[in-house]
């Protein structure tokens, strides 16, 4: 059985200095298939895709499009050859309209002196018609992340691409939005478009892809039909070692424990209303819900990063409702942002300076001078506790992998000896190995009595990690799940307003 290949990469090698990012990797994409590309961060996925998109030049090897050798010198050439690339990090101009973003490449190619706006709007409307409900006239920055993702895809499709690369497209999407994306992918596939799908989420891959290629440490490990393999097998091949149980054991006893943090009737009058819940000692509490449901806003509200109009937060029975985040830090409630690069860490600053940022006074001597040795000692101590892998503590955070960056952000929170940590999407953009490690760290902290609240859009993570979860819908608590009730189906039902199956509200 032979298949026509839309794209073939033959024996690609690429080195950055002494580091071999890719060694002799071959990869074939059949016409009209959805081909998953998996591997830990640093396995070489991005390097390979950047070579295919003409961003990087390979040191050796060649690329064939429709069986013909292609010299892809730039992303523009790649576009002309029909390759569309939707990057993981959204690269849209926030201040201009959706339609203008979609037409960016077409405008770039345009020879005429003036813009043809009628054409721009029309092109955007057709491109978006099949994809979803996005207003082409809207200002792009006003859209939600998932809507922006749709715009990215529309932008790639306007270029008549026959090969579409999706780099972790669901990382920022909720389950429901992801389902929409899979519909779109299925339709594109029917139109004969070949898709390279990069993701860390096994469930999605096994549900929606035809074949899987695994890369590890810049080498091709295997390519398999989805039907021939299973998630366990793929994960094992990705990490090259056995991960053990994917999630740490839960703490059933926490159901009986006293409340550590209680939130009562918290409202900000805009995005969330009358939110009441409690976090027990030793418990990991999940907050589920669709993107835009108000999960992040609730977290910001309870930490004093967003002003609330009513309600109360109490810790060990004492009212601590914060007016500002610095107050919240002082009482021991800290927050980890979902936007790691934008708000979680200072990417250009050294690791040690990141860790000390929350309470710089802790590493300072009396009249207010930072002590370098204390700062280093603090970062070394917390880094060791979290098994942070880094060269020097003076290196910029930007030099670390996503998982290690997240550990720096965690170390920063732990530096103040917090009582409650609220984590917003703690494993977004983190590879499988580091993810399991972060889960273990969180469980370990919970066991030591630190309250952990986890917001996540990834349902398997919530179900696997948390002892209990509350589900937010349109700014209100739609229900609570625990024990056997805590499964993906139940959470989706609550999050999307279908009601709880057994009718037990929170």
């Amino acid at each position, binding site marked *: 059985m032979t298949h026509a290949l839309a794209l073939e990469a033959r024996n690609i090698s690429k080195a950055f200095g002494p580091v071999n990012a890719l060694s002799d990797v071959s990869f074939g994409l059949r016409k009209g298939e959805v081909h998953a590309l998996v591997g830990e961060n640093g396995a070489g996925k991005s390097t390979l895709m950047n070579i295919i998109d003409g961003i990087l030049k390979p040191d050796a090897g060649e690329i064939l499009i429709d069986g013909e050798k292609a010299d892809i010198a730039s992303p523009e050439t790649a576009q002309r050859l029909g390759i569309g690339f939707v990057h993981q990090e959204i690269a849209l101009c926030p201040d201009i309209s959706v339609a203008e973003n979609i037409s960016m490449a077409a405008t770039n190619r345009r020879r005429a002196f003036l813009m043809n706006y009628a054409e721009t709007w029309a092109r955007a409307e057709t491109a978006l018609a099949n994809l979803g409900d996005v207003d082409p006239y809207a200002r792009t920055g006003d859209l939600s992340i998932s809507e922006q993702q749709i715009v990215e895809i529309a932008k790639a499709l306007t270029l008549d691409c026959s090969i579409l690369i999706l780099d972790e497209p669901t990382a920022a999407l909720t389950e429901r939005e992801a389902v929409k994306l899979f519909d779109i992918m299925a339709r594109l596939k029917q139109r004969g478009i070949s898709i390279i799908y990069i993701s860390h989420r096994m469930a999605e891959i096994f549900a929606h892809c035809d074949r899987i290629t695994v890369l590890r440490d810049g080498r091709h490990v295997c390519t398999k039909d989805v039907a021939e393999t299973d998630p366990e097998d793929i994960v094992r091949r990705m990490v090259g070692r056995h991960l053990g149980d994917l999630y740490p054991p839960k703490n059933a006893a926490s159901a009986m424990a006293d409340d550590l943090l209680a939130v009562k009737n918290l409202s900000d009058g805009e995005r969330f209303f009358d939110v009441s819940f409690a976090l027990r000692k030793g418990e990991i509490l999940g907050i589920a819900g669709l993107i835009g449901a108000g999960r992040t806003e609730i977290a910001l509200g309870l930490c004093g990063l967003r002003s609330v109009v009513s309600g109360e937060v109490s810790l060990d029975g004492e009212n601590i409702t914060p007016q500002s985040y*610095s107050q919240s830090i002082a009482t021991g409630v800290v927050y980890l942002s979902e936007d790691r690069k*934008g708000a979680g860490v200072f990417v250009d*600053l050294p690791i040690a300076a990141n860790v000390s940022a929350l309470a710089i006074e802790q590493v300072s001597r009396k009249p207010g001078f930072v002590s370098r040795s204390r700062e280093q000692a603090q970062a070394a101590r917390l880094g*060791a506790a979290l*098994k*942070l*892998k880094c060269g*020097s*503590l003076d290196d910029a955070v930007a030099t670390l992998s996503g998982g290690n960056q997240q550990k720096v952000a965690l170390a920063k929170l732990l530096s103040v000896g917090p009582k409650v940590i609220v984590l917003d999407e703690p494993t977004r953009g983190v590879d499988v190995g580091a993810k399991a490690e972060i889960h273990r760290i969180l469980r370990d902290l919970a066991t030591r009595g630190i309250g952990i609240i986890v917001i996540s859009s990834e349902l398997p993570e919530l179900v696997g990690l948390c002892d209990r979860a509350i589900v937010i819908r349109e700014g209100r608590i739609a229900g609570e799940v625990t024990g056997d009730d805590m499964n993906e189906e139940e959470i989706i039902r609550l999050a999307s307003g279908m009601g709880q199956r057994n009718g037990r509200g929170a």
Partner: protein
Amino acid sequence: MSAMEEISGSQTRSGMSWRSLGNMRELGLVLIILALCVVMSFASPYFLTWTNFRAMLLSFSIEGIVVVGMTVLLIVGAIDLSVGSVVCFSMVVGGFFFLAGLDPWSASLLAIAACAAIGALMALCVTRIGLHSFIVSLAFMVIVRGLCLAITGGTPLSLFSLPASFKFIGQGTVYGIPVVIIIFAVVVAIFDFLLRKATVFRKVFYTGSNEKAAEYSGIRTNRVKFFCIVLCSTLAGLAGVIYMARFGAATPTFGLGMELNIIAAAVIGGASLKGGSGSILGAILGMALLSVVSSSLILLDVSPYWQDTIRGLILLAAVSFDHVLHNRKKARPQRPARQ
């Protein structure tokens, strides 16, 4: 335990830090300045003389005080175009109160306080209304210049009656070293130290590097910005008072275009217009470079009509050189640390 050893081991292994990276940049500037000096000492017999060096130092020491404030401001991610006007405002207000009968010291304090107040007003516009410091300070550049003209009626205030004890600040010498240079050196030393060590200034770096991350670390970024803007105006006020003592006059058009020279010096010295990086020592070296270039152009008898063009080209070359050097450093592929 092994992880602990791993980390503490790597800590001693690399002495490269934030600070030494900054020092490398400063070293580059020192080399450029030295090279220029060597070339000039052959080209002109007057260059390598104490008189010429003294003149060069004098020419930038008072402006150098303002450069300190500007550097802090650039690090926090803001900018101040009004410094030239504020320097002038300080002279005019100080002169006004002195002529009104106040002793020169009190008049000077009032002048500096007035400049701090101007800074506070700008800071309020930035932090409360949420305007960008560029546009706020542009407006204040014009407003304050207007105030100077209004107070003086457009004519210079003659302050020859200033007591000698006050003029000493601007004109006196200690062991042959002008007091102005001593004040400048002290201000630079203090702020260079503070910027490297003080927690307050660390917050300045945090805010400039990533304002949102700073907010999410509990840092009140608006307070930090407020502090920096007021500091810059206050230092401009201090510089104004020293100019007053030096010139014994207050000219309402003094300091026109000064802000550009000052921003240029800070940027040559490594301050980023995007915030988050910069050093006092670098900025002062930037100032020194500009000064050496100016002095060279004069000694080489370059037509004054061409001097500005050449100065601009040198500014462009210095900044480009640094940018290319810095970016090459960054572009070195960095791979996540793995086991």
